[in-house]
């Protein structure tokens, strides 16, 4: 939990704040270049996350006692498969 990789939203927010900071000229030239590179990497990360995303669907068992029980996991092949 503690060392989770950044979520899509976090990456997007960071990209936005980097663009803001460079636009407002709050940072030095070298820092700007560093931030630019980081921002471009984030943009690439977001792009590929969107392109490669495969929706995972877990169906839990109706019983809700104790731990969650995954009855089955579906992928993007089709949520209706098996219905």
């Amino acid at each position, binding site marked *: 939990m503690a060392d989770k990789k950044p979520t899509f939203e976090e990456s997007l927010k960071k990209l936005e704040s980097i*663009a803001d900071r460079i636009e407002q000229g709050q940072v030095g030239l070298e820092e700007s270049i560093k931030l630019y590179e980081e921002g471009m990497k984030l943009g690439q990360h977001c792009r590929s996350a969107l392109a490669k995303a495969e929706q995972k669907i877990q169906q839990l068992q109706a019983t*809700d006692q104790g731990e969650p029980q995954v009855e089955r996991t579906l992928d993007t092949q089709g949520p209706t498969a098996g219905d």
Partner: protein
Amino acid sequence: MAPTRDSVAATDDQPLGRPKRPNDLLTVAELTSRVREAIVHALPATVHVVGQVSNYKPHSSGHVYLTLKDDTSELSCVMWRSAAKGMQFKLEDGMEVIATGSVDVYQRAGRYQLQVRRFEPRGIGALELAFRQLRDRLAAEGLFDPDHKKPLPNYPERIAIVTSRTGAVVRDMLITLKRRYRLAQLVVMPVRVQGEGAAEEIVRAIGALNRWSVQLGGIDVMIVGRGGGSIEDLWAFNEESVARAVYASRIPIVSAVGHETDVTICDLVADVRAATPTAAAELVVPDANDVAATVEALAGRLRRAAGHRLELERSALAGLLNRRWWREPLTAVRQREQAVDETLTRLVQQAWLRLRETDRRVTRAVSWVQRIQPTAFAAKRAVDLNSAVFRLRHASDRRLREAERMLAGADRALHAASPVHRVGRARDGLTSALQRVSVALTTSHRRWQASLEATEGRLQALSYKGVLGRGFSITRTKTGRKVVRSAADLSDDQVVLTELSDGEVESRIINRKQLELFGSDG
């Protein structure tokens, strides 16, 4: 009916050996019993009565007592605990209702009453009334407060869906979510959405998802709903227990029950109400195409901002390079050279000034020596002095020349060091050289000035001590040590000191007249 009653009375009377009573004499119980039978037989097993509720009294036993009335009559009513438990809405005095039940007689009080199995509000359905009542109560409690509503995440990572496992609803939602935003993981929690136990399952599912959120990787938003149906079908979503579970959920909930026109309590408590389940799916995720466009827009902004920034720096640099300093770097060097020259000139001037002063004093000393007709010793001292002065002058000349040489060297070094950054270092070197020269000059100047002053002192002493040796003396007053030049300076009994060549005597004035005579004589 009548024959039956007669036969009952006949059989009652005959066999008992009690005191004889008239045939029509009845006990209270007998009459009441007959009335009860008559009523029960006369009325259908089930009656529907319209009236207004009054004297509504729910008893702690669970039975409910009330009176139904209209403009002219009143009817006692009772609803037993078992039936009262099934009431969907709450009775209130003044409410127009239809009571369904059977008429019976309460023998103990001799009162007939309607035993109500079911009440229905008149004008609207019972469920509708129940809905309104619960809505008003929960609203008063603050369950629908906008302040309590949680915002939905913009980019959910994990979405839970609480709905029926069968039916088009779950399929439509999954298709919509897949079409719009595959980044989100979905967790489906199947529940019954209508009929007995549906509300309990929904409540349990909402609670379980909140408890399991962390284990499932963090659920960002939950959709609770079902497809369209009658008000009875949707009823589970109007249950108070569901409303409270939705309110208590830490995970934001989108309620999507039935069609657009169906509004349930669950919709009102939820953080967001969606008109339909498909609308809910569209509501909880962004469209991936829009998100991609946002990413591209941000990347573009970043590129432009960075490009703009570089352009700014470039033009700032060009502006700097265009300044005079860069175009004519020697100007600054020249300016520093000039400052050095000025310092040098001042230094030399000062040195010459001091030398001239020394020269003047030596010349004065020599003239004193000549004036007091020096003895051979004094003459020798004068010669010594002259040679000392000559040596001093020579030495200081040498030092000055040395300093000038050093300065010239520094000057040359400065000129040779054309790159601007060396100027500072050259200047520092020069400054310290100048300081050294200045200190050296000052020190030597002080030294020979002291020696000169000593010589001068001795010369001045020589000038009159020689005279004392020849028999002259000097008389001074004892107080003030003032040289006595005239008898008029003294008074009788005054003490004077007389300096001789080998000492000093102290005397007192006895006769001034003689002195006056002596003075006038001389």
